[in-house]
């Protein structure tokens, strides 16, 4: 009786033990790589959402019971000093939270948006990180992009790119116009709108909502930080 219980127990414990040992080794090898990638991505994102700004260290404050992280940056432009803010924000999409970093200027106009984490449906929602390419397969085989189609914008994902210039504090509208391209920019900006991802309304809404919420939190967090600073001076 004891043998019948003991032996299988020992076997399953041994299997679990060996598996965990093996995994901890793999984890030890890959962990620094993964951390480095995450940090690299964050730095790249900062440079992307606040182009040309000197950004300070990350600031955090507790707003509405949650930690809120943001960065402040300054840039000299036309002899005047301009301030920019970048913040992390997330909102649930179709496959877990969609986390992004957003850069805004003092008036809440978005300078750049970069999606850091998402697990949306491949081929639909995950096109929020798709990089638009005008190079067709035939062009590629013939050898590179023909001059007529040279993209005049940086090769950053089109869905994120279209947030540039939108006012984050004023309610972002969502339009269904298919893939964004530079010609749509003016008509969309006039409406403070973006073009939705085809077949991925939930993902689009998640990003829009997270931007609006993050902007509201940024205002509160800065007010809170300013309040604390004033108190500290007293």
């Amino acid at each position, binding site marked *: 009786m004891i043998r019948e219980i003991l*032996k*299988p127990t020992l*076997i*399953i414990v041994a*299997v*679990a033990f060996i*598996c965990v040992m*093996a*995994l901890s080794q*793999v*984890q030890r*090898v*890959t962990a620094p*790589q*993964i951390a480095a*990638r995450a940090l690299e*991505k964050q730095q790249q994102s900062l440079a992307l959402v606040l182009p040309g700004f000197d950004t300070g260290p990350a600031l955090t404050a507790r707003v509405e019971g949650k930690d809120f992280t943001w960065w402040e940056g300054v840039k000299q432009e036309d002899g005047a000093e301009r301030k920019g803010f970048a913040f992390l924000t997330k909102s649930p999409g179709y*496959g*877990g939270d969609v986390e992004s970093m957003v850069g805004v200027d003092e008036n809440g106009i978005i300078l750049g948006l970069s999606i850091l984490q*998402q*697990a*949306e*449906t*491949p*081929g*639909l929602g*995950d096109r929020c*990180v798709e990089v638009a*390419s*005008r*190079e*067709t*397969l*035939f*062009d*590629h085989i013939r050898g590179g992009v023909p001059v007529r189609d040279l993209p005049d914008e940086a090769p950053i994902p089109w869905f994120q790119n279209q947030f540039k210039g939108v006012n984050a504090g004023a309610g972002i509208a969502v339009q269904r116009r*298919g893939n964004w391209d530079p010609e749509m920019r003016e008509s969309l900006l006039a409406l403070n709108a973006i073009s939705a991802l*085809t*077949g991925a309304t939930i993902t689009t809404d998640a990003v829009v909502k997270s931007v609006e919420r993050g902007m509201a939190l940024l205002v509160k967090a800065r007010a809170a930080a300013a309040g604390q600073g004033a108190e500290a001076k007293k």
Partner: protein
Amino acid sequence: MNYWKELVKGIWSRNPQMVIGLGFCPTLAVSTSLSNALWMTLAATFVLVGSNLIISSIRKIVPGHLRIPIFITIIATFVTVVDLLLEAYQPEVYRSLGIFIPLIVVNCIILGRAEEFAQKNGVFVSVLDGIGMGIGFGLTLVVLAAVREVLGANRLFGYPLIPGMEPAAVMVLAPGAFFTLAFMLWGMNAINARKKRK
């Protein structure tokens, strides 16, 4: 035992999705683009071969009533290895496949092969079986993905094909996957039926 037969059976006569009818979840979900399909094939084949190898080598000491938890532990270990490696060295792929990498754990092809083959056969044939099944799984995925990417996104390997053509979005959605799969099954059965008649 005919080694060659064990290797190639997964490609046509015992194709995991088309004949055995297993593994439809990843098949339908990641076949939206060719590069997703190829990375999925690589990941699943690695797990399949690894789990077949380990399971067939410990098959004699595994108590019958405990085999499922033990098999799942081993499969989950391999999947976690793939998950960590992809996150560390192929972050773009990792981001694009997302949840479907961890979901390889519950891919019925892998547990199915462990149950049906690896626990009853030697190490070498089990590895061959894993490779063959992986190739078969991958072929179905690649054909499906090529059709869906061309018709649904007007792209191949991420490159646009015909500039300015509006793709049929339904092909990227789930119904498109089912339509394509139905046509593939029809084609396969038609070929088999013709062979039989001869």
